[in-house]
């Protein structure tokens, strides 16, 4: 509860700070400070210091899983702000409002990780989505940003409709919105329930950009201001996955066998489309959009083989994927040219940046010694354990191999190609920026060796 309330309050604080504070730097530091506080209060609740005692009427339930997830999301946001807060200033004049929206989104995330009723799920997703529509369109003069925003809005609203239809059918079949009740239908209503759950599954697939409901993702991620793409491709997406897995645990798991083929189809399609399409991209930003689809395909394994492995895995995956992608975006933001060629010769100009960027990319590709490896590993373990078809698992690893292709293109550009002559000698980055990136990379490597540190808090 701490996180929900504080993030809402902080959102309001930021909203007003724009009115009273004119210095961008102070606003930025305020946001970073508040973010740190938010992280702390959430951690406090994780260690047993909940500040609020409200009758939730069983609509929210705070589990250690959700709280750890919040921690990951908040920590990632914190790093994100440290790295990219300056870049937010570049987007438009409404700096304070952007931060306010980010806090509102975090509020939505905190709800999404702790909902216990479909109503709250619906609200959480809307609280996340609506600010995102706005952030996507925040670069108002940029037609691409406009376009992305409108596409996102139309398709997002459409998926909301599907989701609501699903919830309505579930309600019809079970008479309740509570998570604990939705797995079992009243007599004669089984088909209605299945239909409802399927629609809900489709809507959630849309939100996590699983194929064939992923079409908004590349365009929106590409069109949105890069700094916000970074945010929504990582933290938001991971949070929705947390919600998804929570929902799945309650609603789908009791009839898991029933859902095997639909999930197999979705996972296979997502992996296939995400990885294959990413191969031919020319822009790193758009490649990352497709990569996020591909990574979502892997994360879906957590649902497929729901188990401790799946749960731990999704935590690790969220952390690894978010950290790596935020890092890559932070570097990308400093580039003038978003194409692969823009990275040419980066290792000469900025060896440190190239090095940490390499670690991020290796992590995304799932190479050992980075957290990405264990993330993928846990997903595969979860899948195998749940008795997923061996072909699906092999298909997944083949797709992972394809992913190496496009991630390594960046590495190749950085290390083995030479920059065009007119490129500036270095990138406009501060020492702090580098330090944070190195720390981020260190975290990735550390988690790549001792992944279980992340789970320590889940079981207690």
């Amino acid at each position, binding site marked *: 509860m701490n996180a929900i309330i504080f993030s809402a309050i902080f959102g309001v604080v930021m909203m007003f700070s724009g009115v009273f504070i004119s210095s961008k730097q102070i606003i930025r530091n305020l946001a970073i400070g508040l973010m740190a506080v938010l992280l702390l209060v959430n951690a406090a609740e994780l260690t047993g210091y909940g500040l609020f005692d409200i009758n939730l009427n069983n609509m929210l339930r705070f589990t250690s899983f959700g709280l750890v997830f919040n921690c990951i999301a908040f920590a990632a946001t914190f790093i994100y702000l440290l790295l990219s807060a300056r870049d937010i200033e570049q987007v*438009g004049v*409404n700096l304070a*409002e*952007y931060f306010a929206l980010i806090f509102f989104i975090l509020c*939505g995330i905190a709800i999404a990780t702790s909902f216990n009723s479909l*109503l709250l799920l619906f*609200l959480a997703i809307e*609280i996340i989505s609506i600010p995102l529509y706005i952030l996507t369109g925040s670069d108002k003069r940029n037609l691409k940003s406009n376009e992305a925003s409108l596409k996102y809005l139309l398709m997002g609203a459409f998926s909301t409709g599907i989701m609501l239809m699903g919830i309505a059918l579930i309600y019809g079949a079970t008479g309740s919105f509570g998570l604990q009740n939705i797995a079992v239908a009243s007599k004669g209503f089984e*088909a209605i329930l299945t239909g409802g759950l399927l629609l809900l599954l489709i809507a959630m697939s849309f939100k996590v950009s699983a194929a064939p409901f992923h079409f908004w993702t590349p365009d929106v991620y590409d069109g949105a201001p890069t700094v916000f793409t970074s945010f929504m491709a990582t933290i938001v997406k991971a949070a929705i996955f947390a919600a998804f897995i929570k929902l799945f645990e309650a609603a789908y798991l009791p009839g898991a066998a029933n859902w095997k083929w639909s999930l197999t189809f979705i996972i296979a399609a997502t992996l296939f489309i995400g990885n294959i399409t990413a191969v031919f991209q020319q822009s790193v930003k758009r490649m990352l959009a497709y990569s996020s689809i591909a990574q979502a395909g892997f994360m879906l394994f957590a649902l497929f083989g729901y188990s401790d492995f799946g749960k731990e895995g999704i935590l690790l995956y969220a952390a690894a994927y978010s950290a790596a992608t935020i890092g890559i975006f932070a570097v990308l933001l400093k580039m003038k040219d978003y194409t692969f060629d823009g990275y040419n010769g980066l290792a000469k100009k900025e060896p440190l940046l190239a090095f940490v960027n390499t670690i991020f990319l290796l992590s995304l590709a799932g190479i050992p010694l980075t957290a990405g490896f264990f993330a993928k590993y846990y997903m595969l373990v979860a899948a195998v354990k749940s008795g997923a078809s061996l072909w699906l698992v092999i298909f997944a690893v083949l797709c992972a191999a394809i992913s190496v292709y496009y991630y390594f293109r960046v590495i190749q550009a950085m290390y083995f190609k030479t920059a065009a002559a007119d490129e500036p000698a270095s990138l406009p980055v501060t020492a702090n920026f580098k330090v944070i990136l190195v720390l981020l990379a260190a975290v990735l490597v550390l988690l790549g060796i001792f992944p279980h540190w992340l789970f320590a808090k889940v079981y207690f």
Partner: protein
Amino acid sequence: MGVTQILFWVLTVLALGSALMVVTSRNPVYSVLYLIICFFAISGHYILMNAQFLAVVNVIVYAGAIMVLFLFVIMLMNLNASVEPQKNKWLKLAGAIAGGCLLLVLVAAFKDADNTLKQTMVQTKDGEIGLIQNLGMALFKDYVVPFEISSVLFLSAMVGAVVIGKKE
């Protein structure tokens, strides 16, 4: 066929018909107007089910506020039939077929449960739950958390509208 049934069918035909007109009319303004009719028809359904509060809210919020907003925007942009772009005929057909397929599949999926559903009745006329008193109690007692949370939603929508609308 009792009055309820007659009313049900009338309202249903009205709702579906006007919804179809929303989709098919060329002039956006007509679409808005048909949509308002559709909403009224749905409100009629609510009344039929004795959900008075929702019926009223539907008229005020949807048919009133939201649709006026739509109308206002359309007027603002001066959109009319002549500027209304037309989609490719084939795409339209494909869209219609896809929608039809969806309906077909959904209906077919629930067809199995038809017998149970036929025997399960929806309370019309009686039942007090739709009254404002009962809903209010529930809303502010049991549903206070989501209610408060929805305020965050509104806040963000408000901030959003400002961010998007404010001139730079």
